[in-house]
């Protein structure tokens, strides 16, 4: 076991003996088998793996959107049974409600959780500024660019002040330039909000840029998982030799270098 939570930082995740099987065309497909993982409170863990390696499934189980077929997921020592208030998810698509303004969308999470509208909107405004959209509270989603819409999605997740932020290829649909800006933004938000972040990505550079650790899922099911500790100060410089070296290490994991 690793050393754990000081009292004030929460958001520790423990996964034990996790199994998840899907039935596709009447054939059972085991995606995760006997899977173990410890995520430290407040860390940013990035997850990479070949497609079909189960990275999105793992994230969805952590989110409580998929039930595990076996094993246990604990957050701060308590087994989860579904979605929970201490977690929020950011998807690849922003998933904004087109009939609500930016403000309405960001306040949505809190309102659903029973916060009165006024308070929810007050919090929402704060996080809309945090993601740099201060002037766009009254805009509708169809008026936003892809990057801006994703910022709204991020603000909505932050507004509920989760201990754990689960991100499923959050920048996968953005163009290269916007993506780099958003990676910087995510790093800034993560350090300001002191939240545990789990980021599934297929972008190895992103995995190195964001992560304290990179989790590499094995190609064959049930194989050993591997971690790459990224020992670089933030903000990180993509061109410095050590960064490049980490990226090469990751490429090698996939037999691509």
């Amino acid at each position, binding site marked *: 076991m690793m050393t754990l939570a000081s009292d004030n930082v929460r958001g520790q995740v423990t996964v034990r003996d996790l199994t998840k099987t899907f039935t596709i065309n009447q054939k059972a497909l085991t995606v995760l088998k006997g899977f173990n993982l410890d995520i430290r409170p407040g860390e940013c863990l990035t997850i990479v793996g070949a497609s079909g390696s189960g990275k999105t499934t793992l994230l969805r189980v952590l989110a409580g959107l998929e039930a595990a077929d076996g094993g246990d997921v604990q957050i701060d020592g308590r087994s989860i049974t579904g979605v929970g208030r201490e977690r*929020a998810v950011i998807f690849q698509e922003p998933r904004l*409600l087109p*009939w609500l303004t930016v403000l309405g969308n960001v306040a*949505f999470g809190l309102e659903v959780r029973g916060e009165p509208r006024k308070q929810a909107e007050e919090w929402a405004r704060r996080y809309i500024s945090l993601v740099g959209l201060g002037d*766009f509270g009254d805009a*509708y989603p169809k008026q936003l660019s892809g*990057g*801006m819409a994703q910022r709204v999605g991020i603000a909505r997740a932050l507004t*509920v002040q989760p201990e754990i932020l689960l991100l499923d290829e959050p920048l996968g649909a953005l163009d290269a330039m916007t993506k780099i800006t958003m990676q910087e933004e995510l790093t800034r938000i993560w350090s300001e909000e002191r939240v545990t972040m789990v980021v599934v990505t297929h972008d190895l550079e992103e995995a190195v840029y964001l992560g304290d650790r990179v989790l590499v899922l094995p190609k064959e099911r049930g194989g050993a998982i591997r971690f790459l500790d990224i020992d670089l100060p933030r903000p990180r410089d993509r061109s410095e030799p050590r960064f490049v070296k980490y990226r090469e290490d990751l490429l090698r994991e996939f037999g691509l270098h």
Partner: protein
Amino acid sequence: MTLQNTEKAILIGDGRRSFRRSFRANVEILNHPISLVGRFLSRYGVLLGFLLLWQVASHVGWFNSAVLPPLDTILVALWNGVVGGALLDDIAISLQRSGIAFLAAVVVAIPIGLFMGQIRAVDRALDPILQLFRQTSALALYPVFILLLGLGEASKVFVIFWATLFPLLLNTTSGVKEVDPKLIEMARVYGASRLTVFRRVVIPAAIPSIFVGLRLSATTALLLLIASEMIGANSGIGFQVMNAQYNFQIPLMFAAIFLLALLGLIVNYALVLLQKRLCQWSEVSN
């Protein structure tokens, strides 16, 4: 941060550009009143041409003006009918029949449609019989309704109700079924209950589709109104069309037909206006 500012600049820039464009358009209108007339003509020119052709052809005698009277005669008949009061009772009773039927269809179809769309088992169980009912022409069933309900108001209102029910029901159901499951999942992540998901995600998302149903139903209501009034009525706009033809009051017949067209246009326009107010976020087509 710089890129983020670029994003904003692009959006603001877009705004400015469209502002400039509309500004330029205004200037053009001021400088060239022709362009305003041109825009009007490009939209309504064909319609005006058609009405003009009618008027001229009837006057000059290209066709029998007893069968196709000139427009001014028709307008006079319409004026006399409405202002003189001869048609007012018919308008009132027609509006009452179609109005009651349409409202009843709204009250019945929208809740059932929402329910059917939400619960797969109900939809599966009800769909076959609804498809059968829908494909059976309401007009074919009208004699049945007359047998069951008599020749009075009830059978007329019911046949209109019957025909308006299905477009509304099916569009409401499909609107609910086609809600993006990703949005529902998003709401679930925040702990939304089924009821909250229904209230905050499903219903708003289904509204554009419900409006498609409302507009189809309104058209159907007018269609069935006329048919039912032609078959077994002694009042109503549809009755007046038929009656005027029997009595060879052709201008009055056309006046009643124009009235129906007008009614249809007004109802559709009102629904489009309401839809634009309720769902600015989605595209509304006329």
